[in-house]
């Protein structure tokens, strides 16, 4: 049986959750946890019009795969799939999908949560927020030499 990270995707096209769910589900799966990160219309008191994501594509894909491998090693789960979008995203569009399969739901929820946290800490992707009067690259998590964020 194939295990571990089964689908890692970085794309400027709309994200579709169906292939991720299908890629992680096995006949041994009792649960699939699916996380959507979506673009919201406000941040820190401002109305947000849209977001622009930049990515270091080669390293981002490598880092997404590392996160998936790390999550599979650390949790009692079967498979992980991760998809991240870049480019311009409108309000309500999906920026991140994480799907995790496991025999029982608790491990899938925990691993999915941990995967999202690690993606946000280590994958070289950046978002710029646009408002009516301008925009700014959001401050994020510094990465150190291991691709870890300092504790």
């Amino acid at each position, binding site marked *: 049986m194939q295990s571990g990270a089964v689908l890692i995707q970085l794309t400027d096209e709309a994200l579709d959750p169906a292939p991720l769910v299908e890629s992680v589900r096995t006949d041994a799966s009792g649960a699939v946890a699916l996380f959507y990160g979506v673009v919201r219309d406000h941040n820190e008191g401002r109305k947000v019009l849209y977001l622009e994501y930049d*990515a270091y594509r*080669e*390293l981002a894909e490598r880092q997404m795969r590392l996160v998936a491998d790390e999550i599979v090693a650390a949790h009692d789960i079967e498979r992980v799939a991760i998809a991240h979008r870049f480019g311009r995203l409108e309000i309500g569009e999906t920026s991140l999908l994480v799907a995790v399969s496991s025999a029982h739901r608790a491990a899938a929820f925990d691993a999915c949560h941990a995967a*999202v946290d690690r993606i946000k800490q280590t994958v070289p*992707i950046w978002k710029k927020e646009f408002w009516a009067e301008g925009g700014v*690259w*959001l401050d994020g998590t510094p990465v150190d030499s291991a691709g870890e964020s300092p504790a």
Partner: protein
Amino acid sequence: MGHFGMQIQVRLFAALAETAGTRAFPLDVPAGSDAGAVREAVQAHFPQLRGLCGRAGIAVNAEYTGADHVVKEGDEIALIPPVSGG
């Protein structure tokens, strides 16, 4: 820079790229430079990046490394601002 220098490729992203006005450019640095020295050379080349480079991590050939990683001719050195994906 001839015998004592080498050319590397620099890549910038997000606020760094926007502030510098470029995402990629070649840079001549002394042979034997480490990644931290390249980061310094980038700031010397683009003084407007000074405030932004301090918190930038470094990747060499699409792998995170430390500032003491010695770079080679033709390496791709990327400056990685604090990440904000998701």
